[in-house]
């Protein structure tokens, strides 16, 4: 696992068995985490999975029903937001509409009674960090969405908090701007070295930016790990299906293909559609016959949904690199091949398989799953 060794230093954030109930609903259900100083840590999950509630409890906007939250070793479970050394970048930015950009950014320093000159210098520096040094006099409503986003970031960073919390900060931006802000965020995090806790439902964003990711589902953590671990060795069917795409193979189908009941997951890019003649009998390659049920063009690749004769549905991704005529059509009979080692066992998954499986099929968009 990554570069940090939690045993050696006090974690920036420690979450011990935290539960938050709203009425009878447990939004966060027994979550424990240790986040090391300087990490870019993502809370990833679908909406309603408890990731935002978790973030709001770290910020102090919500109090846990039970459990304990520590910042840098200090118990802050019951502390109000203004008494915690964390700052938040809000989803809708939450800039103060009656103040100009400069006054927005220096607000935190003003509350801490930092003298005016120092305040101005630090705020100007923070604005420079987000490349908005020329915009100090503007009001928030004179800025574009991306600029407001940067102001929100500067307003939080200027306080040099121990931990910066980001609540889906890029959710409201269009794709191009979002990608730009992603690399901007990564750069800023490297430069300032502050621990970032980043809430997102976008798995691509989480994989790109994070040093580690916690995947949330139904208020619980399904898996914590580096982006590579999460993607390449998903710990549960839910993680396999939510982070990237995956086909889950289990029961009779798994027995026919691999030899035991599974469950297994396999990434579409690891499945190859074989030309009928190539009968290379590689010991490591598993071959299966099936029928194409759907073909979706994705730009950089084409997704082919298959119904295997062994009784499972499987997704294959064909990169769009060469001859387009070789793509199978819907209804065609094809043979696919994949390596035994690409069939990832989900057996060690802690989550109840029934529940997890329901979510996998939901996250598959093709809807052809029988």
């Amino acid at each position: 696992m990554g570069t940090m060794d939690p045993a050696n230093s006090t974690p920036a954030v420690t979450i011990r068995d935290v539960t938050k109930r709203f009425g009878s609903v447990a939004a966060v259900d027994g979550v424990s985490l240790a986040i090391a100083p300087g990490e870019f840590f993502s809370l990833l999950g679908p909406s309603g999975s408890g990731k935002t509630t978790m973030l709001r409890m770290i910020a102090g906007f919500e109090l846990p029903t039970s459990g304990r939250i520590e910042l840098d070793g200090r118990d802050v479970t019951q502390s109000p937001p203004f008494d915690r050394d964390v700052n938040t970048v809000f989803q809708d930015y939450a800039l103060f509409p009656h103040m100009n950009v400069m006054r927005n950014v220096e607000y935190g320093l003003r509350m801490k009674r930092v003298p005016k000159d120092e305040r101005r210098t630090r705020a100007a520096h923070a604005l420079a960090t987000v490349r908005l040094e020329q915009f100090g006099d503007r009001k928030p409503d004179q800025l574009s969405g991306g600029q407001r986003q940067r102001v929100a970031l500067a307003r939080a960073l200027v306080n040099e908090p121990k931990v910066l919390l980001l609540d889906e900060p890029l959710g409201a931006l269009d794709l191009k701007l979002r990608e730009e802000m992603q690399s901007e965020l990564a750069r800023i995090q490297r430069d300032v070295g502050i621990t970032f806790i980043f809430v997102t439902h976008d798995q691509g964003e989480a994989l790109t930016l994070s040093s580690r990711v916690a995947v949330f589902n139904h208020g619980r953590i399904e898996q914590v790990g580096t982006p590579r671990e999460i993607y390449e060795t998903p710990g549960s069917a839910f993680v396999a299906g939510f982070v990237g795409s995956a086909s889950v193979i289990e029961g009779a189908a798994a027995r026919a293909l691999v030899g035991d009941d599974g469950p297994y997951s396999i990434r579409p890019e690891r499945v190859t559609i074989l030309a009928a003649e190539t009968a290379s009998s590689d010991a490591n390659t598993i071959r299966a016959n099936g029928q194409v049920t759907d073909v979706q063009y994705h730009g950089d690749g084409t997704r082919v949904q298959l119904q295997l004769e062994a009784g499972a549905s499987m997704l294959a991704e064909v990169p769009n690199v060469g001859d387009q005529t070789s793509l199978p059509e819907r209804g065609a009979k094809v043979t696919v091949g994949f390596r035994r080692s690409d069939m990832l066992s989900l057996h060690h998954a802690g989550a109840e398989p029934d529940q997890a499986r329901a979510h996998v099929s939901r996250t598959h968009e093709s809807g052809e799953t029988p």
Partner: protein
Amino acid sequence: MYLSSFSRWMLRGFTALVLVVLYAPILYVARLSVNTSKNYAWPPRGFTFSTWNHAVHEAGPREALTHSLQTGAVATAIALVLGTLAAFALTRSRFFGRNAVNIFIVLPIALPGIVTGIALLSGFQRVGITLSFTTLVVAHATFCVVIVYNNSAARLRRLSPAVRDASADLGADGWQTFWYITFPLMRTALVAGGLLAFALSFDEIIVTTFTAGVGYKTLPLWFADNFSRPNAIPTVNVVATFVVLASIIPVWVAQRLTDSDSANR
């Protein structure tokens, strides 16, 4: 929006008609206030400021105007405090009976003044409170609170709760958040509510009749006493014209404030 030339002319005609109906009587009174003859005869003859000169030196209307300003100011001040506090309570927290409380706060504005007036009068008498400036102010505050409450509550509902979270997140305690964030963002709503409340109190007559102390004349009461007395007519015209002119100022202020407010968001 596209309108045929016929509809456009119709709309212009109606607008002109409505403005004439609204303002002709006021202009009529204004014209009579500088008339040389001392009756409502039309067409007016001559032009003089002697009635104005005379009215300025009359104690009755000046005292009544002072009373109205005092009553309006105190009632509005009370309404600003109570109405805003009520708005905070009812928009920021949920509690049993919240909707009922909301209705009870707003109800006085819908009650006929005669009902409010009689109810307050018999209430005061029952507990043995003699009518005075205080009873009058309390009576006016009952409906002034509603105006302030409605304005403040509407604004508070529109304020994003994330802005308060952001303020707390940046180290501001509850008072600092109120002082630097919430209050500035609702200031224009308070001014608008306050002006409206004051205007309501200023021309209130029915509740005033029942709750003012003996001999305490507000401007509407003075008008009611004098408008049918032939030798007071010139003064009535002058005072009426003066009030119309004076009320342009707060209306203008309110418009400017709400304009700059909408430009800010």
